[in-house]
């Protein structure tokens, strides 16, 4: 059975969704246990996959057994990078599912089973995107995850949820279509859809081919829309802040990160770093864009008054970190990016879980409404602080180590602007979060505090500590953030293992490393 693990992850989730759909219509109460069971099994299987990859190297799984000429069937290909990202996706899914417990209890409508069906299929789509080895299959799963996230966002009760979802649909479809078109250009020139085979065909091409270049640009631009990279992020803040908490907790950490992962996969496996870094001179330009993205995201986060919106702009900045790290053509930059995909997923999850709890318990939407939260909800704030420290980058959280690797990469490859932007962004994060701590600990200045006190006498007695079903995922997330930081050495070792396997390091970096060692 162990060799069937790759497909089992998806099947467990798919069957979970089907069972929820079939039985949840009759009895709403089975939805939650079924969802959590399916996600728990998926996490268990992804741990099994990670174990197998660590022991036996890359897993290649041919669906339908069509392996003879590679590329006639669909291949699932898992190395340590996929396995780690897969584990991240399923774990975030599980934690958010636990968090959504309150939703079932409070929200007694016929929408509940529909929500869980879409939720499970979203996690399935994202997991499928992570493990697939076929460029077109990736498109299908991209659409699975996109359609579910459109629906989950549009289900929000806020009036603006629908408009946000609509612009997300338009942008998301443009992104997915660009990706599809890029795959079409690749197919036209290489005649195959299997990622490894495309790589071989690109290496075998005689001379530069403009088709491949255009395909590359289309795919990267399409993915940049999907991951909300700087000039193309317009859809993100509204879409992620007007949807229900249990939706934003899963969509915000995962969608952009999986987008970044797919970009890394395209660079590593499909086009190959030799081609990406040597035939093209765009790397400088893209790192420059990333610098702008980091600075713009941080500045716009500073300007926000709403908590969730602020986190959304921080996501834009974080995407800038990762894109910049990936395009520095440096070993440590790439390592830092992949490590940051995992770390940032949990950090964002922590932020949005806390924001969801604040919204639920105290009706907090704006930052200034947080005053006195350390007193009112000390347990929630404890979890939030861990996430905030990770966002700032204080050891021993994972945020510190990912920034360390990214900065090391930036220094080795001489991208000083990137290093500077990263430090400025950390500073901005520090300002942002210490401002929140200050409000939450000391309250606002007396006059304002007094006014606020008058405003919300009806809300005041309602504020009480969060339900355990909300606190458990928050604490688990905080624990994972710390564990990721403490065990960063082992994780980086795992990532490096795969990077050597697929030759991540561009030629010039090989030379550089040779010179050092």
């Amino acid at each position, binding site marked *: 059975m162990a060799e069937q693990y790759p497909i089992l992850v998806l099947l467990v989730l798919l069957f979970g969704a089907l069972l929820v759909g079939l039985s949840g219509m009759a009895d709403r109460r089975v939805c939650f246990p079924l969802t959590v069971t399916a996600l728990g099994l998926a996490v268990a299987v992804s741990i099994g996959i990670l174990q197998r990859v660590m022991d036996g190297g890359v897993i290649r799984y041919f669906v339908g057994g069509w392996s003879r000429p590679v590329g006639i069937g669909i291949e699932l290909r898992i190395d340590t990078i996929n396995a780690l990202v897969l584990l991240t996706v399923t774990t975030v899914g599980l934690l958010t599912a636990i968090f959504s417990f309150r939703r079932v209890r409070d929200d007694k409508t016929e929408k509940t089973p529909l929500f869980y069906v879409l939720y499970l299929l979203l996690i399935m789509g994202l997991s499928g995107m992570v493990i697939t080895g076929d460029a*077109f299959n990736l498109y*299908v799963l991209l*659409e699975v995850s996109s*359609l579910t996230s*459109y*629906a989950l966002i*549009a289900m929000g009760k806020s*009036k*603006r949820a*629908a*408009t946000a*979802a*609509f612009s997300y*649909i*338009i942008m998301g*479809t*443009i992104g997915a*279509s660009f990706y*599809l*078109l890029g795959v*079409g250009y690749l*197919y*036209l020139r290489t005649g195959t*859809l299997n990622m490894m085979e495309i790589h071989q065909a690109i290496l075998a091409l005689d001379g530069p081919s403009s088709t491949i270049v255009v395909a590359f640009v289309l795919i990267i631009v399409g993915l940049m829309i999907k991951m909300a990279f700087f000039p193309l992020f317009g859809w993100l803040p509204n879409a992620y802040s007007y949807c229900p908490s249990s939706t934003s907790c899963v969509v915000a950490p995962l969608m952009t990160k999986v987008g970044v992962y797919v970009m890394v996969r395209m660079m590593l496996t499909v086009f190959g770093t030799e081609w990406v870094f040597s035939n093209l001179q765009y790397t400088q330009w893209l790192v420059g864009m990333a610098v702008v993205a980091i600075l713009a995201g941080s500045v716009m986060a500073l300007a926000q008054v709403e908590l969730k919106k602020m986190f959304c702009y921080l996501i834009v900045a974080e995407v800038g970190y990762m894109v910049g790290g990936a395009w520095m053509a440096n070993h440590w930059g790439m390592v830092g990016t992949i490590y940051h995909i995992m770390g940032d997923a949990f950090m964002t999850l922590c932020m949005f879980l806390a924001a969801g709890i604040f919204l639920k318990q105290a009706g907090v939407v704006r930052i200034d409404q947080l005053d006195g939260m350390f007193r009112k909800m000390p347990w929630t704030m404890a979890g939030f602080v861990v996430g905030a420290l990770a966002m700032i980058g204080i050891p021993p959280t994972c945020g510190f180590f990912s920034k360390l690797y990214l900065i090391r990469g930036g220094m080795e490859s001489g991208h000083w602007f990137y290093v500077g932007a990263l430090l400025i962004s950390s500073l901005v994060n520090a300002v942002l979060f210490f401002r929140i701590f200050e409000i939450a600990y000391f309250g606002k200045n007396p006059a304002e505090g007094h006014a606020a006190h008058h405003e919300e006498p009806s809300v005041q007695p309602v504020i009480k500590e969060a339900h355990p079903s909300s606190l458990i995922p928050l604490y688990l997330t905080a624990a994972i953030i710390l564990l990721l930081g403490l065990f960063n050495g082992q994780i980086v070792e795992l990532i490096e293992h795969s990077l050597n396997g697929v030759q991540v390091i561009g030629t010039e970096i090989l030379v550089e490393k040779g010179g050092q060692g």
Partner: protein
Amino acid sequence: MSVMGSFIISQYVLDHFNFWVAVILMMIGLYAMITKNNLIKKLIGMSIFQTAIILFYVSAGVKEGATIPILEHHAAETEQVAAGDAGAEHGSVVGADHDVSKSSEKAPAHEVHEINPDDYSNPLPHVLMLTAIVVGVATLGVALAVAQVIYKNYGTLEEDEILAKIKAAENDG
């Protein structure tokens, strides 16, 4: 010069005419998606964009003088017998060759000795595009549902009017 011109036209336009039109349709669709004010128009543009991509793929799979990717019916029947026999005998390759050659002797009008890949258009883009069409209609359906919700909330489908109403609501609250 005119010979040269017609050569260039034939080289760059006629040989790739399908691709040209696909790109033109894509641009029409994309332009509508970005700039149209009416949400339904945006969605029509989206559908045009997607069909143009499908046109691109299908054009990539065309072979001059090839037929549809369904094997000729007569050939199909004899081959099917061959395949069935082969499976029963557990000697697939030998059995298949044997039977096919026999059937071609029986029916010389149909040359079924071997399937020539050049005779059939490339089936792979067709399969991919079946998927893309279905994905397209799924997206369209979801987007139309969202558009109806927007209409219910704001009473209009014009983007500028919706934005104005959102602004007004923000100023009020």
